[in-house]
C-alpha cells in the first residue's frame, strides 16, 4: 500500500495539542500550582572542587517563611545515574565538583524568601585543587574528581574492526587532521522545573519537565531510598528537550526531598542561569586519519576523540560509543579503528544532545573528506557517492541496514541545487558544500528499551491512547494518534492521548536516541491492531462477512466488496461492548526490534538499532570577506527517514535541525572562566539563531518504506542536525578557500584564515 491510499499516514497533521499551546492553555511545569505550595531553590557551590565540611542553616531557618533546608547529608548518598556502571550523582552533594554543584536546598513560602534564605546558609568548604582541561585531567597526579575513576577517565571506548594498518598500507592517499567541536547549550526555551507533592500516606507525585519520567523515577527512588511504588512521575507539557532533559537532575531530587520533609507541595523552576548550568553538549578534540584509493574508495579510517565529561558522567559511555558507531553508518569503511575517551573535569556536566556523540566526529570526518577530495582531484559529492552505504550492507562493526537510500539522497539533492554548476562558480564569495550522515532509530547498548501502548475504545467510538512515549514538543502524541486513526479509520479529533506517566502508562525508557516513532509507533500499531481484530470479528458477525474482509475507514466499518454493508465505528463499539457477557475493547502493544544485539563487551560488534536513517545536506553560504560574517543562503536536504508519517512534523524537524546546526557552526559557545565557572549563562550572551539567521530549507524525501519501522517510518529527529555543521564548513571553503577546523566559525577566525591564506599565496 503506498501513501496515496492512506487516509492519515503521510498527510499533514497539525499537532493534536496545537490549539492548547497556541492559546496558552497547555500547562507546563512552571504553570502548575497546588494549594499551600512552597517554592524551592538550590544553593550551588561557589568553588569548582570543594568538600563540604559543615552547613549551618540556622539563620536561614530562622527567617520567617522558611520551612526547611536540606543538604547533601540529608540524602542517603546512594548514587544514581544514566548507566548502572557509571552512577555518580546524589542530587545534593557533600563534595562539590563544579561551580554551581548543588550542596543545599531550601523550601519557603515564596521565591523571594527562598532566595533570601540561600544567602543566610553558611557552608564551610574545604577547597580542593581543581582541573578544567580534559588533557590535564587525565595526566597522572591530576586532582581526582571521583575516587573510583583513575586519571578521571569515565569512559574509554575502543573499536578495532578489520585490519586498519593493512588498510592504510593499501591506500594511495592518507590524511591526518585535527578538529575541535565546541561545547554548546541545548537552550530549550523552557527552563527545567519540577512540582513535588507528598500525600498524607507518604505517596509522592512529581510533575516535571522531562524526556524520561521512568528514568526519573528509577533515579529518585534510588537517591532517596524509597520504594518505586511510592513515587509517581508525570511528564507535564515539556518545552523542548534536545537531550538535556533525558537524565534526572538535582532539583528533581531536592524537590522530592523537600516535599517529603515539609509535607507540602513544592515547586522548583530553574532560572535561565541555572538552566544552562545543568547540561551541555560535550566538546570534543578529534584526530582523524582517513586513507583512500585513487578512485576515492575509503580503505581505512582511524579516529581518536577526547571529550570533556564535566563533573559527572551522565551519558558518557553511550556518547563515546555513539561517536564511534555513527562513523560506520554513511560509508562503507572496510577497516575502522577508534579510541574514544571521556574525562571528568571540574566544570558543569556534558550529556546527551540531539545527535548524541555523532555531531562532533561527523563534522571532523565530513570536513576531512572534502580535503581528501581536493587532494585527489575528485568532486566531493562523487567521493561520497563512491563510498555510500547501501541497502543490505552489514558494516565491519555489525550494523545492518535493512533500508538505505543514501546514494539517492546524494543524487537528488545535488541535482536539485545544480551542484556541478554552482561548484564551478568562481569570483564570488558564495560557495556550496555537502555532507552526509546517518543515525540510529533507538540504539540499545544495555538494559531493556521496549515501548508500550494501551488503547481503550469508548462506547461512542472515541479512543484513548495510553502510551509510555514522551512528547517533548516534537509531536509524538500526534504521530501515535495518526497510527491509530489509520488503523481504526477514525479522525484524530476522536482520539485523545495520555502519555508518559509512571503510574498509568506502560513503561518506556524515554525520548532519546531517536527511538520514539520507531519503538512507540510499533507498540501503538500492535495495540491498535488488537482492537481492530476484536472489532472486526464482531463486525463480521453483524455484517455477515469474514473478519479479513472488514475495512475501517471514514468512521465506518464495512465489507470490502460491498461498502453498503456497513456500521458506524461508534455503533460497532457500543455493539462490541454488549456482546455476550459484555466485553471491554482494550488493545495492548509492546515492541522492541528483534534484529538487534547488544554490542559485544570486548569488540563492540553488534547491530544496535533495528534500522538507520540516512541524509545528505547541501549548504549554500555567502562570506563577507570584509567582516568575516557568514550568511547561510539555503540548505537542501535529501533525507531517507523511510515513510514520512507527518510531513508537517518532518519538515519541522528539518527546519529546527538546520537552525540548531547554524548555531553550532557559526554562533554558539559556552565559555568558562579560570575557575571553571560558566561565564555566559544567559540568552543574551549565549546567542542562538533568530528568525533573521535561518534560511528556508528544502527537504527532499528520498526514502522508501522501511521493513521494520511502523508503516515504514524511520527517525528524523536527530540525524539531520549532524550534517548541517560540516555542510556549512565545506561551503565556506568552497566560497573563500579557508578551512576552519575549530568551531564555532566566528568572523574573527574567518578573517584570520583569509589573512593567512593571502600571505601564503603572496609570499
Amino acid at each position, binding site marked *: 500500500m503506498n501513501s496515496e491510499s492512506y487516509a492519515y499516514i503521510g498527510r499533514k497533521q497539525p499537532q493534536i495539542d496545537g490549539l492548547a499551546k497556541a492559546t496558552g492553555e497547555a500547562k507546563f511545569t512552571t504553570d502548575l500550582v497546588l494549594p499551600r505550595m512552597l517554592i524551592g531553590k538550590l544553593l550551588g557551590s561557589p568553588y569548582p572542587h570543594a568538600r563540604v565540611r559543615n552547613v549551618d542553616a540556622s539563620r536561614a531557618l530562622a527567617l520567617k517563611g522558611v520551612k526547611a533546608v536540606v543538604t547533601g547529608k540529608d540524602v542517603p548518598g546512594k548514587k544514581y545515574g544514566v548507566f548502572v556502571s557509571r552512577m555518580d550523582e546524589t542530587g545534593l552533594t557533600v563534595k562539590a565538583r563544579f561551580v554551581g554543584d548543588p550542596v543545599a536546598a531550601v523550601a519557603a513560602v515564596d521565591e523571594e524568601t527562598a532566595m533570601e534564605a540561600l544567602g543566610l546558609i553558611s557552608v564551610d568548604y574545604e577547597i580542593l585543587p581543581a582541573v578544567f582541561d580534559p588533557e590535564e585531567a587525565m595526566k597522572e597526579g591530576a586532582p581526582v574528581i571521583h575516587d573510583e575513576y583513575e586519571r578521571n577517565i569515565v569512559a574509554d571506548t575502543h573499536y578495532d574492526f578489520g585490519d586498519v594498518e593493512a588498510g592504510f598500507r593499501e591506500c594511495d592517499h592518507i590524511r591526518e587532521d585535527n578538529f575541535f567541536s565546541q561545547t554548546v547549550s541545548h537552550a530549550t526555551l*523552557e527552563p527545567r522545573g519540577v512540582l513535588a507533592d507528598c500525600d498524607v500516606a507518604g505517596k509522592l507525585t512529581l510533575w516535571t519537565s522531562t524526556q524520561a519520567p521512568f528514568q526519573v523515577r528509577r533515579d529518585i527512588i534510588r537517591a532517596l531510598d524509597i520504594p518505586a511504588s511510592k513515587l509517581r512521575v508525570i511528564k507535564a507539557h515539556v*518545552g523542548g528537550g534536545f537531550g538535556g532533559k533525558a537524565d534526572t537532575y538535582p532539583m528533581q531530587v531536592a524537590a522530592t526531598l523537600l516535599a517529603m520533609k515539609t509535607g507540602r507541595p513544592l515547586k522548583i523552576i530553574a532560572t535561565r542561569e541555572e538552566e544552562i548550568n545543568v547540561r551541555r553538549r560535550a566538546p570534543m578534540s578529534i584526530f582523524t586519519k582517513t586513507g583512500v584509493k585513487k578512485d576515492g574508495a575509503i580503505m581505512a579510517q582511524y579516529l581518536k576523540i577526547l571529550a570533556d565529561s564535566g563533573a559527572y558522567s551522565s551519558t558518557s559511555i553511550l556518547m563515546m560509543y555513539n561517536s564511534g558507531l555513527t562513523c560506520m553508518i554513511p560509508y562503507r569503511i572496510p577497516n575502522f579503528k577508534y579510541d574514544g575517551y571521556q574525562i571528568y573535569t571540574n566544570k558543569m556536566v556534558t550529556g546527551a544532545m540531539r545527535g548524541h556523540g555523532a555531531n562532533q566526529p561527523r563534522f571532523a570526518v565530513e570536513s576531512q573528506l572534502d580535503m581528501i577530495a581536493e587532494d585527489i582531484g575528485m568532486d566531493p559529492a562523487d567521493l561520497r557517492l563512491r563510498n555510500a552505504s547501501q541497502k543490505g550492507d552489514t558494516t565491519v562493526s555489525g550494523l545492518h541496514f535493512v533500508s538505505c537510500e543514501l546514494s539517492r539522497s546524494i543524487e537528488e539533492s545535488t541535482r536539485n541545487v545544480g551542484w556541478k554548476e554552482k561548484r564551478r562558480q568562481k569570483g564570488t564569495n558564495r560557495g556550496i558544500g555537502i555532507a552526509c550522515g546517518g543515525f540510529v532509530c533507538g540504539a540499545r547498548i544495555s538494559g531493556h528499551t521496549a515501548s508500550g501502548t494501551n488503547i481503550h475504545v469508548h462506547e461512542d467510538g472515541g479512543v484513548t491512547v495510553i502510551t509510555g512515549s514522551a512528547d517533548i514538543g516534537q509531536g509524538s502524541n500526534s504521530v501515535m494518534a495518526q497510527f491509530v486513526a489509520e488503523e481504526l479509520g477514525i479522525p484524530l479529533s476522536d482520539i485523545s492521548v495520555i502519555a508518559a506517566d509512571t503510574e498509568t502508562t506502560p513503561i518506556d525508557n524515554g525520548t532519546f536516541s531517536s527511538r520514539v516513532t520507531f519503538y512507540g509507533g510499533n507498540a501503538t500499531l500492535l495495540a491498535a491492531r488488537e482492537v481492530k481484530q476484536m472489532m472486526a470479528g464482531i463486525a463480521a458477525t453483524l455484517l455477515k462477512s469474514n473478519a479479513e474482509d472488514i475495512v475501517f475507514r471514514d468512521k465506518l466499518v464495512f465489507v470490502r466488496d460491498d461498502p453498503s454493508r456497513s456500521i458506524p465505528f461508534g455503533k460497532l463499539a457500543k455493539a462490541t461492548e454488549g456482546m455476550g457477557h459484555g466485553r471491554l475493547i482494550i488493545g495492548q502493544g509492546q515492541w522492541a526490534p528483534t534484529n538487534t544485539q547488544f554490542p559485544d563487551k570486548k569488540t563492540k560488534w553488534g547491530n544496535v538499532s533495528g534500522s538507520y536513517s540516512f541524509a545528505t545536506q547541501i549548504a549554500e553560504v555567502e562570506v563577507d570577506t570584509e567582516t568575516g560574517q557568514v550568511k547561510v543562503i539555503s540548505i537542501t536536504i535529501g533525507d531517507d527517514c523511510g515513510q514520512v508519517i507527518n510531513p508537517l512534523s518532518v*519538515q519541522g524537524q528539518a527546519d529546527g535541525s538546520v537552525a540548531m546546526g547554524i548555531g553550532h557552526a557559526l554562533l554558539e559557545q559556552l565559555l568558562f572562566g579560570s575557575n571553571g565557572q560558566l561565564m555566559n549563562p544567559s540568552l543574551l550572551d549565549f546567542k542562538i539563531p533568530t528568525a533573521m539567521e535561518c534560511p528556508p530549507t528544502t527537504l527532499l524525501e528520498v526514502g522508501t518504506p522501511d521493513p521494520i519501522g511502523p508503516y515504514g517510518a524511520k527517525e528524523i529527529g536527530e540525524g539531520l542536525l549532524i550534517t548541517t555543521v560540516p555542510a556549512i564548513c565545506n561551503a565556506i571553503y568552497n566560497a573563500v578557500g579557508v578551512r576552519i577546523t575549530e568551531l564555532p566559525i566566528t568572523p574573527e577566525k574567518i578573517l584570520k584564515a583569509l589573512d593567512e591564506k593571502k600571505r601564503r599565496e603572496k609570499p
Partner: protein
Amino acid sequence: MKRRLELTVNDECLDVEIEPHRTLLEVLREELGFTGAKEGCGLGACGACTVLVDGAPVLSCLTLALEVQGKTVTTVEGLVKNGQPDPVQKAFVDHGAIQCGFCTPGSVMSAKALLEKNSNPSGQEIREALAGNLCRCTGYQKIIEAVGSLAKPR
C-alpha cells in the same frame, strides 16, 4: 507596601494589590492566573513573555506591573473570542508553527501586533518583527509561513 493597580486584561477591568517591584509577567501569571505568557529568561532576551500593552508588544518580564496602570493588556488567552481562536493562533496550529509550544504565546503576540500594524507584511518584515522571539524547535520557517498566510494584499 502594597500598591493598588488598576488595569484591563483581556477586556476585563481588574484591580489588584501588589508589591511595587513586581513585574507585569509575575502579576499576570501569579496574581491573575494568566499563565499563557512564559518566563524563558527573565532578561528580555527570549520574548516568551511578550504581551500587548495598548496594542504594542512589550516584554512583560522587563515591565513593572505599575507601569501599566490604567492601560489595556492583552495576553495570548485574550485572543480567543467567543471560544474561537484568533486567526493568528489558528494559522500557527495549521502551519505546524508550533512544536514544544513554550515560545508560542510570545511569538503569537508579536505576530498579532505586526499584523494589526501592517496587514500585508513581507517575509523580511515578518522576520524582523519576530526576531525578538527565540524558538529552538521550529527554525522559524513555519512561524514565518503561518504569519505570511495571513498577509492581505492591499
